[in-house]
């Protein structure tokens, strides 16, 4: 047994975490070994010292009152929210109908390109993506995703809620259904990857426990900060930025209709690109994908004409 393993065993003993049979064996050893006994005593002394500094702090009486007041406020707000969501859904449905009518003319595409000025491409550090992916993927109880927590809801229901709450960064965009790739939606939230940028972040899990993060933002983003950063052509003329990061993580980003989609997962880039190819953030009937530079050129032509 290595020195570390021995220490772990003694610590487990000191913490009352060993079975009765093992306990007797360790106690026999402690009776014979002053070094082992000292180690157990030290662990207990450290625990006692930490406990002393822990109990020093006490909350103020006002804290409890403040928390209760906030909960009351939230309760009241929640009772009003149901009505607002209902109303928002009705407006959203009306907007969809209007959009369908407007989609007939090709000029709409160009008009939409003009609408969200200024066109800003921001550099998004690869580590920031990875950090956010790790933090959100470790939250099994969804505490970071309270606002748009989807729980057991289907992708259709989740998108309906997000739309009703006006949480999606781009009109017409929806969280992708990745069931074909064997990933089920587990949560969604408005995690800000960069300031001044509307982002919806969703996590998907596979049956074997792999978490995939998908971000959709309201403007083009650019990955930066990775040593292995490359551009890859994908389905439908998409141009992907691909970063591979230590630890087996890959990140894929592309722009679509002045929005950006970023994917992150613990898998080789080729595998992630296959998933990216299947994602249609604006639905399967999406119009041609145009990168931001092309979009600017088309917009200028339209203005001239």
């Amino acid at each position: 047994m290595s020195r570390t393993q021995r220490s772990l065993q003694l610590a487990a003993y000191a913490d009352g975490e060993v079975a009765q049979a093992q306990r007797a064996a360790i106690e026999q050893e402690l009776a014979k070994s002053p070094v082992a006994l000292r180690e157990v005593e030290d662990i207990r002394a450290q625990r006692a010292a930490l406990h002393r500094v822990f109990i020093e702090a006490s909350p103020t009486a006002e804290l409890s009152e403040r928390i209760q007041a906030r909960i009351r406020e939230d309760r009241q707000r929640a009772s009003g929210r149901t009505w607002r969501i209902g109303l928002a859904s009705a407006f959203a449905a009306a907007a969809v109908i209007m959009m369908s009518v407007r989609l007939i003319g090709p000029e709409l595409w160009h008009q939409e390109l003009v609408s969200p000025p200024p066109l800003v491409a921001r550099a998004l550090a690869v580590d920031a993506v990875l950090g956010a992916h790790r933090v959100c993927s470790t939250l099994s109880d969804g505490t970071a995703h309270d606002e748009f927590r989807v729980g057991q809801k289907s992708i259709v229901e989740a998108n309906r809620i997000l739309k009703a709450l006006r949480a999606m960064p781009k009109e017409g965009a929806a969280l992708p259904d990745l069931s074909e790739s064997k990933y089920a939606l587990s949560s969604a939230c408005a995690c800000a990857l960069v300031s001044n940028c509307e982002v919806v972040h969703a996590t998907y899990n596979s049956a074997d426990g792999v978490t995939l993060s998908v971000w959709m933002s309201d403007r083009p983003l650019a990955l930066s900060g990775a040593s292995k950063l490359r551009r890859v052509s994908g389905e439908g003329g998409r141009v992907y930025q691909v970063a591979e990061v230590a630890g087996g993580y890959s990140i894929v980003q592309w722009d679509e209709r002045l929005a950006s989609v970023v994917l992150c997962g613990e898998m080789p880039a080729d595998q992630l690109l296959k998933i990216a190819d299947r994602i249609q953030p604006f639905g399967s009937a999406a119009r041609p994908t145009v990168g931001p530079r092309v979009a600017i050129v088309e917009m200028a032509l339209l203005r001239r004409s």
Partner: protein
Amino acid sequence: MSGKSFEEIALPHLDVLYRYARRLTPDAHAAEDLVQDTYLKAYKAFGKFELREFGVRPWLLKILHNTFLNGEAKKKHAAHSTEPQVLDTARAAAEIGSVEGDLRIDLDGLDDEVKRALEQLSPDFRSILLLWASMELSYQEIAEILSVPIGTVMSRLHRARQQMMTLLADYKFRGRGEPPNGREAT
């Protein structure tokens, strides 16, 4: 859920939550904010919580812990930090690897130094030490709160304890002008 309100079930744990928050955060104000956020999140998620094996306290601690980590991550993003968490862990492990040895210090009367050492530890180490030492939680409960396997709890605790003793030895011996040679100081 036994017919009790959220407040009746959750608020009795305010002291423990605040104490945990106070040692995780730099000041009392930040600790109060963290506890308040925790309660609001818990309240919103309460409908989906069932009084499981370990009861409501580990669940509240888990929410507090995750809220704290989220806040730390957001601060990092805001500062455009490009240092992934994995590097912190790797660095901490490397530091600890270099200080293997028998460190023995009498901790009586060193409460201020213990607090200072806690503040200097990484959030991972700080939180595991607090959960371990302060609330009589089992390894299984700590594993639940931190969402890690029990083996990770044991090894992380071991490393956290070692790093803390190294820091304490450093304070103590540096204060006396003696080298931190890892031998008995009392």
